[in-house]
């Protein structure tokens, strides 16, 4: 008997999800974090798992975990002091970035403070050209001076990023060797080893993010290893990556940039797994926490991947599960402007002080307070008994808003929810528009503390008729880690025309990528199971300034069939942009390979059919759709396979509350998901 253990470490809670591999039994657990003693909660949790579910440390075959340590380092600006070496004449690469700034109507728009200040950026003479030729040798004297200066300024590490290093990393390698020789105490990363892709800003900033979080991530992983060893956990511990896959801790200590969206990405992977179990193909996931909400699309059962997600103030250019973060959550604050218009957000009460009704010193009305005033919250303790709702405090806070509007308390509360939903609607709509899909083809899957509370309301606004609330909405990320594959991305920039004469280069490059992939999976990770390599190419028409990624078949590469590659691009372009141009020239910018070492997906055991009808625990008074009414309240733990309930109703569970407005009917499926369908 063996266990796979998935753990997601967040700001407030650590979520555990465990799977007994022989029986496919799934269990979960939530433990409060112990900020004073990091790692302690993990050991406590493992103890509880052993006590409650018989998960013996020695029988843990896989320990998979997601962490926010990387992303928090960036958000809190607590990373390493770095020096950056660039090609001389291009020292401002990270400050100029791609020029365009957010908030472009404001004369006060600014850029975030850079992670490497300009006085720690050193231009080094030496020049590789676009064709990879060594035009001007690296100036080792200037380099040595720069190392000495950087050292004198107390840096912990050096990032090297020279022009065209994706094509010829010679100068970067020379500089790296020399820096290591001259300053052995400093860590050094070069852009071509971190992510060797064309576009200097993107490549440089990726290398910087990697170095910036490296010391903290590395130290954290080392202490985790120690703790697990002490606890006697037998399996090889793994880390979830932004690409939804896994790597071992050793790899995580240097390939830090690929774990920045660790927990977020595995949430989407977990959601995709649950959707597959429930036979739902198209899903919009909605993870709402206190201050923000994460949205992702699963199309035809597959999470979407992309680059350009943001981490803190910075764009992330390594392949990641596409997740859109919006600044609205349960803690978003309601206010009234000078014209008497009700607004919600962008200011948030966050988790501290939090909504007024948490009784932790928050005084301003939040979405959570509005839900409490409506009677939708406060019927049971929240977050595994960690929070008790004080409805009186919620009423006082919402009352202040009501007075300004000249409306009743409940009307105001409902209006707050409606305004909040409509602002989420704007963001979800943009996401849907970007993908050019129809929301009516999608099922909404809300999770996170506030997701199931608001899910049906948002679905109604979007014209989405189906909502699915997983049995354990609080541990979707931990579950995502549990079922994740070993996975790594490799890229080479080739920048060649899609013509037959490029076929040998394409073949050779893919062969080299495959070698890199095999080495990563078999040698570095000792993975023995079945593996798969997916090939793709980033391509564009001549004159375009962005590429689209096109899946490439192995056979085309072997046969040198560039025509097939071109045809695939034309098809993909048509599918994404509604047009193509078969007469136009095509460029192949990058070739990519994704190596995947497959983890067996558990087939969860269907739950037995319920014996009778669902029985409400009691009835509560709630304000819904403009009237006060008495609605049944169910305990999620009492809901069994094939139970049906009709809205309006409320379902409470340890980690969240599900609000079911009138017009929605719910059915519990074999995996105990709550399936809601709009009857209108």
């Amino acid at each position: 008997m063996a266990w796979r253990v998935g753990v997601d470490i967040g700001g407030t809670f650590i979520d555990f999800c465990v799977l007994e591999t022989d029986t496919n039994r799934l269990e979960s657990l939530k433990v409060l974090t112990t900020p004073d003693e990091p790692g302690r909660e993990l050991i406590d949790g493992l103890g509880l798992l052993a006590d409650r579910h018989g998960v013996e440390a020695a029988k843990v075959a896989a320990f998979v975990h997601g962490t926010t340590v990387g992303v928090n380092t960036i958000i809190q600006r607590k990373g390493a002091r770095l020096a950056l070496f660039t090609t001389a004449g291009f020292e401002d690469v990270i400050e100029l970035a791609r020029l365009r700034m957010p908030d472009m109507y404001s004369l006060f728009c600014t850029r975030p403070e850079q992670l490497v200040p300009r006085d720690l950026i050193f231009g080094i003479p030496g020049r590789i050209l676009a064709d990879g030729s060594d035009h001007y040798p690296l100036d080792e004297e200037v380099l040595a001076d720069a190392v000495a200066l950087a050292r004198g300024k107390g840096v912990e590490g050096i990032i090297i990023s020279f022009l065209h290093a994706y094509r010829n990393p010679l100068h970067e390698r020379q500089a790296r060797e020399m820096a290591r020789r001259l300053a052995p105490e400093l860590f050094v990363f070069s852009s071509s080893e971190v992510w060797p892709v064309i576009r200097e800003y993107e490549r440089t900033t990726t290398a910087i993010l990697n170095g910036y979080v490296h010391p903290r991530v590395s130290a954290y992983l080392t202490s985790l290893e120690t703790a697990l060893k002490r606890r006697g956990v037998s399996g090889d511990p793994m880390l979830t990556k932004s690409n939804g896959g896994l790597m071992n801790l050793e790899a995580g200590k240097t390939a830090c940039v690929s774990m920045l969206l660790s927990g977020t990405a595995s949430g989407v992977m977990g959601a995709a797994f649950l959707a597959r179990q429930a036979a739902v193909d198209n899903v919009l996931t909605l993870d709402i926490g206190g201050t923000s909400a994460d949205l992702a699309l699963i199309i035809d059962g597959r999470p979407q991947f992309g680059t350009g997600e943001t981490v803190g103030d910075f764009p992330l250019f390594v392949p990641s599960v596409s997740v859109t973060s919006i600044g609205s959550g349960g803690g978003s604050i309601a206010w009234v402007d000078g014209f008497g218009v009700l607004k919600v957000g962008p200011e948030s009460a966050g988790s501290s002080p939090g909504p007024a009704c948490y009784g932790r010193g928050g005084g301003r009305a939040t979405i959570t307070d509005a839900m409490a005033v409506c009677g939708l919250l406060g019927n049971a303790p929240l977050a595994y008994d960690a929070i008790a709702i004080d409805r009186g405090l919620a009423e006082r806070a919402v009352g202040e808003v009501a007075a300004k509007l000249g409306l009743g308390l409940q009307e105001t509360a409902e209006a707050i929810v409606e305004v909040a939903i409509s602002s989420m609607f704007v963001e979800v709509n943009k996401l849907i528009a970007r993908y050019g899909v129809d929301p009516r083809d999608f099922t909404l899957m809300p999770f996170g503390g506030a997701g199931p509370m608001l899910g049906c309301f948002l679905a109604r606004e979007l014209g989405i008729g189906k909502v699915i609330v997983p049995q354990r909405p609080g541990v979707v990320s931990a579950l995502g880690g549990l079922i994740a594959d070993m996975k790594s991305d490799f890229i080479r920039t080739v920048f060649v025309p899609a013509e037959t004469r490029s076929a040998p280069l394409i073949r050779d490059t893919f062969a080299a990528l495959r070698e890199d992939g095999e080495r990563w999976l078999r040698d570095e990770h000792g993975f023995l199971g079945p593996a798969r390599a997916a090939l793709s190419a980033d391509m564009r028409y001549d004159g375009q300034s962005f590429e689209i990624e096109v899946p490439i078949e192995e056979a085309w590469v072997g046969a040198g069939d560039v025509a097939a590659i071109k045809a695939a691009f034309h098809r993909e372009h048509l599918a994404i942009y509604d047009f193509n141009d078969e007469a136009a020239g095509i460029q192949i910018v990058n070739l990519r390979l994704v190596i995947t070492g497959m983890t067996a997906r558990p087939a969860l055991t269907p739950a037995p059919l319920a014996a009778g009808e669902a029985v409400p625990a009691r009835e509560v008074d709630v304000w819904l759709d403009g009237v006060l009414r008495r609605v049944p309240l169910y305990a999620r733990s009492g809901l069994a396979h094939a139970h049906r309930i009709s809205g309006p109703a409320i379902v409470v569970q340890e980690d969240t509350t599900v609000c079911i407005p009138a017009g929605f009917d719910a059915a519990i499926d074999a995996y105990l998901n709550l399936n809601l369908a709009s009857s209108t």
Partner: protein
Amino acid sequence: MVDKVALQILANHCRAAAENMAYTLYRTAHSTFVKETQDFTVMLTDAGGMTVAVPMDLGATWYPGINFGRAISLIPDYAPGDIGFTNDPYSGYLATHAPDLHLWKPIFHEGEIVCFAGGHIHNTDMGGAVPASLSRALTEIHQEGIRFPPMKLYQAGKLDETILRIMLLNVRKPQQNLGDLKALVGALNTGERKVQAMLRKFGVDGFRAGLAGLLDYAEHQARDMLRSIPNGEYFFADYADEDSVDGNPCRLALTLRITGDEAELDFTGTDPQLTSSLNVPTGNDPRHTLLLVGVYYVLYTLNPHLVLNAGLTRPFTCIVPEGTVLNPVFPAAVGMRSLTCARLRSLIFGAFAQAIPERMPAAPAGASSIVNVMTTDERTQRTVIAAINPVVGGGGGMPHRDGPNGSGADSAYLKNTPIEINEAEVPVQFLRYGLLPDSGGAGRWRGGLATTLEFRVFAPNTRITVRNRDRCRFRPWGILGGSAAEPSNFILNPGSASEKILGNTDVAVADPGDVIHIHSPGGGGRGSPLDREPELVLRDVERGYVSLRAALSQYGVAIREGAVDGEETARRRAEKRRHNKPASFDFGPERQAFETVWTPARYDDFTMIMTALPVHWRFFAKTKLFEAVRELALDGTKPNLWEAFTAIRRAFPQMPPVQRKPNDQPAAADKKRMLAD
């Protein structure tokens, strides 16, 4: 249901509709202009054509207050499925140069128009005398491409193939135009679908009332802000360096009159319309959107919760005399209006900076050069034409922080192209792309630095075109004791024996091995540099933003061995303060010198002469007057404009006479003038 409380809900739905339209257009457009430069807009308007909602993420920033009304009314009747369009700057005053194609689609409910979905795209080319249809040298609208007055492109859902064929025959990139046109039509259809959904949700009466409510809402916000500005008259002038190829300065003048919650923008004193394509067509519309772009920026900056729609324009009334550069009469060329529009924005920023200096930043760089190269690739022997990069300068110093370096303020929407992509595609080699030290205006809050771009070319007869060259002479101004920024420049082979200063030239030809250097202006400084914390000056020196020399000469901060010398700094600063006469604006020495000759009084005379002359004489007369004044000033004579004019009339007796009016009633603009005579 759309009462004030719920107005935000309708606002969000309208915004979502606009964002959806923008994504549809962006996703399906063909040309780089739309895809990368994002030179497009989409919007929902009310039944009268007033813009109610625009996207915030994608597209250009110029048209949240655009009014389709005049263009809409030039088509007598509409049926469901119709789409109107125009690109003519002189009919309907919707389009503002020929490459911009504006479309609008009526959206019906039970036989009645409830609103319009509208938008525009900038076509890479609309035909005419030069590729891309834009050149400063063009002199009348007929040279700037084929034009269509407001007419139906679609009738009841059916495309008018005849119109389309005529259009495509006359342009240089028909496939791109067609692709972008279809993308915009797709966006309008998206807008229509979203409006239908809103009609179901809010009801037709609720929707109509909601649109009216949204316009009122924006109007209220604008009036609220105007009330917070002291009543008064605020005069400001700004200059474009050249009014035509190698031309004279082009002056824009504005008297901003704030009365309670209303504002009048009186552009009297602005130069006459030009025989070049720098004119801005506004069709006597007192609330034309191009006149108010600077206002949108100011209002949004003062209130980031601002609802962007045409309601904002209601409290503003513009007075723009006909036959001036800001209200040219047919057939003046208008293609390069964007250069003048940049000055128009800094003009408005300057006027507001007089009224509420405590809340406004100094001038942004305000001149974004768009660099294109046409050269030969020696490897393939093929001609390569490529857009290299916009060269953009920093923002002005703000009330609470430095201006951003290398971009910002009203040019923050521009994007660059990576050096590596440029070098992979275009046979040039970049030597430098970065910030220019000491280019930001000194101040308590420093102006953002300028950007420098330097590259070498390898083929003979390489043509470099740089659009929107300006601010080479008249610098971005500083305020409240802050200094003006460094001006821009365009230099061939800098620092070599064959160095050639090209200044505002917008076309240059280079030989193999030549180095092209372009730098933008910086942003103006705000507040006295003597008040900047020495630590911040030290940090700027460490970062290479400010030189040691400038730290001492401009900021009075002495730095020795990497540390501030406190005593020496105190001494220097005290000395500087004694000599310092604080002025509210610093325009830099070039403008100061220019304005000792071209004083406000002389400009009043000039305006009087120009106004009296028939429009077709004005530019000629202006050029001659400037020539005469230049010669007189060289001789050391105090130029008398009337005498000079009389002399010119002697040489050109066909020129009509102008009656000198008694100057005892000075223009209102003179009453509260800050410019030193």
